[in-house]
């Protein structure tokens, strides 16, 4: 069931991902920057919001007039800012939704990775509360609808005995204090919680990607500006409590569930919202599973070089004072609560080299479930060896399924980043294969840094380096694990095979 849903999510993201990879390149692919794009939209909302704040008046009569002034008389600046504010917050809902789908599709929320997921859920509520309170402030016909319907929802909470909605049914009952309250929530209260919430959301991750690439930010900003200039955000008629608008133009990104309050009942809508949030909350353990064994440090082989701690995407390795009396200052210590068993630390360890005697092949840090020694045995035993092309494939990759189905020689790893460069050296210099295909996830590794670190290590930009004599051109990093079509991987395989003949001629 879970696998089915995740597969569905991947299939949905697959075609757009391939298109965007073609047009943007994997590095700038927006689908690889959904979290950071969401933050970027928050920035746009913040900056444009500050401009609006200068002109906004928090009173029954002043609110609409001040917005109207911005939209009409100051259209060139205030109107632009208003449109940016509106469209960036809408775009935020879209990237937020895709962000959730993507993290879901690649299992980045399960078991030990529950923290980012669980702290994401209050962010959804905050974003929606911000949206709703924002629409309330404008005090046009939409705001009137939002105010009444929101009040009906609030009135359903058993704590309040007075009906808040009653205040919006007669002009004489309306007072400025609602605007003061909403303005406080929208301008100060909720944004503070949002900033704190985002910080909490990423704080356990090592090097969280807060900003998209510069090019992506520039492109997004230009597109937003163009949209704001061509289609200024509409403003509806001024609210009038003596009337009921026949039709309201809803912002469906924020208000899609509002019609349900009318069609069902406030109680039913609360059940839906709370039910969905609850389901999201328990999702990391649905169904409960057993986490794979965590990375283990072998002190005899650890020289305290810190590379594993540097490379771990989950900050699961800490350096501690040496405990075994060796002359090194530090040693690596794995926090089993944080370690997700990706193996990226193994790929970073200078002692993980298959050139060592088989009996001694115990690196400073290793995955018990798929150790360096096991990996070397697998290579030594690949039946087709020596082979023309040998593939190393991340166990989650689409390529792996294709390779297995088509009987190509391949070795399964937890993550491309699990392979230290000496491994490729070993395969090539021992003549076990002439070319190597490494298949992980290019731009957006499911373990965050696997492909990035591998690429840098091969380019000799990050320790441990691939030795010069190996010839980096003989190692090819395949594309993303969740979006490669069978046809794509087949043609890549043929390309590599042909390249061997070219190497020789």
């Amino acid at each position: 069931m879970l696998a089915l849903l995740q597969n569905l999510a991947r299939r949905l993201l697959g075609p757009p991902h391939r298109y965007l990879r073609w047009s943007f390149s994997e590095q700038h692919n927006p689908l690889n920057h959904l979290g950071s794009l969401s933050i970027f939209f928050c920035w746009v909302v913040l900056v444009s919001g500050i401009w609006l704040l200068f002109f906004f008046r928090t009173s029954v009569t002043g609110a609409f007039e001040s917005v109207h002034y911005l939209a009409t008389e100051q259209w060139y600046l205030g109107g632009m800012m208003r449109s940016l504010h509106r469209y960036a917050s809408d775009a935020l809902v879209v990237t937020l939704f895709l962000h959730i789908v993507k993290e879901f599709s690649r299992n980045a929320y399960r078991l030990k990775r529950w923290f980012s997921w669980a702290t994401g859920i209050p962010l959804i509520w905050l974003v929606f509360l911000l949206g709703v309170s924002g629409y309330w402030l404008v005090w046009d016909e939409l705001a009137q609808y939002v105010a009444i319907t929101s009040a009906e929802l609030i009135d359903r909470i058993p704590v309040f005995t007075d009906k808040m909605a009653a205040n919006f049914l007669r002009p004489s009952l309306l007072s400025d204090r609602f605007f003061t309250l909403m303005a406080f929530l929208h301008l100060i209260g909720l944004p503070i919680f949002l900033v704190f919430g985002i910080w909490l959301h990423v704080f356990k991750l090592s090097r969280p990607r807060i900003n998209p690439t510069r090019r992506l930010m520039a492109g997004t900003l230009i597109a937003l500006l163009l949209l704001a200039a061509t289609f200024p955000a509409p403003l509806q008629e001024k609210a009038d409590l003596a009337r009921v608008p026949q039709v309201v133009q809803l912002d469906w990104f924020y208000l899609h569930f509002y019609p349900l309050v009318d069609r069902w009942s406030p109680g039913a809508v609360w059940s839906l919202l709370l039910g969905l949030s609850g389901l999201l909350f328990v999702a990391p353990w649905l169904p409960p599973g057993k986490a794979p064994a965590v990375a283990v440090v072998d002190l005899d082989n650890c020289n305290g070089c810190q590379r594993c701690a540097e490379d771990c995407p989950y900050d699961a390795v800490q350096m501690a004072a040496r405990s075994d009396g060796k002359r090194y200052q530090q040693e690596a210590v794995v926090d089993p609560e944080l370690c997700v068993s990706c193996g990226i630390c193994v790929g970073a360890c200078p002692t993980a080299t298959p050139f060592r005697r088989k009996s001694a092949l115990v690196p400073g840090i290793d995955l018990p479930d798929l150790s360096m020694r096991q990996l070397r045995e697998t290579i030594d035993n690949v039946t087709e060896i020596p082979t023309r092309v040998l593939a190393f494939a991340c166990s989650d990759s689409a390529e792996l399924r294709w390779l297995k189905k088509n009987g190509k020689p391949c070795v399964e790893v937890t993550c491309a980043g699990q392979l230290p460069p000496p491994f490729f050296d070993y395969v090539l210099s021992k003549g076990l294969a002439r070319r190597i295909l490494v298949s992980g996830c290019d731009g957006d590794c499911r373990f965050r840094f696997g492909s990035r670190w591998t690429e840098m290590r091969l380019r000799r930009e990050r320790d441990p380096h691939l030795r010069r004599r190996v010839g980096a051109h003989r190692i090819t990093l395949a594309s993303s694990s969740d979006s490669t079509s069978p046809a794509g991987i087949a043609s890549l395989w043929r390309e590599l095979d042909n390249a061997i003949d070219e190497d020789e001629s």
Partner: protein
Amino acid sequence: MRLIGQALAFAAFFAFVATFSAGPGFELLAEDEALLSLSFSHAAARVGECTRLSQQELQQLPPNMRTPDQCPRGRHPLDIELRIDGVTVYAAVIPPSGFHADGKATVYERVRLGAGPRHLQLRINDAGGAPQGGLIASRQLHVQPGQNIAVFLDADNRRIVFEQGEP
């Protein structure tokens, strides 16, 4: 070529954003409808009369509770019925709020009604059906489409108000 691809991607994304940012419209009322909002809070009559305790009875109470007048705190529920053109569209018996059932009862109901001449009648009883709690008012209105007609009890003056918004 790829730049055009990028532009297309941005265009598609923001076209989607703009499309659903303000619309399609959601119909709150049909063309020829108005809305009647029945909404007010009211503290109904107390359930019983206060009784004066005798000196003896007072002595039996703990010292901090020795008030000579003992009043039952509870209130009656609010019995309410709204009719439009003789048809009951809303009828309810609303209990008082509060832990001791001594607070206000709150009515909140919105009813769609067709435009045109309408005869509205609101009946309230706030004393458990006793005649002194009965209030009734009717009004012949010419309802305009899109109007919000507020109907409520002005408790201070014990009268029912029909407030018809400007069309």
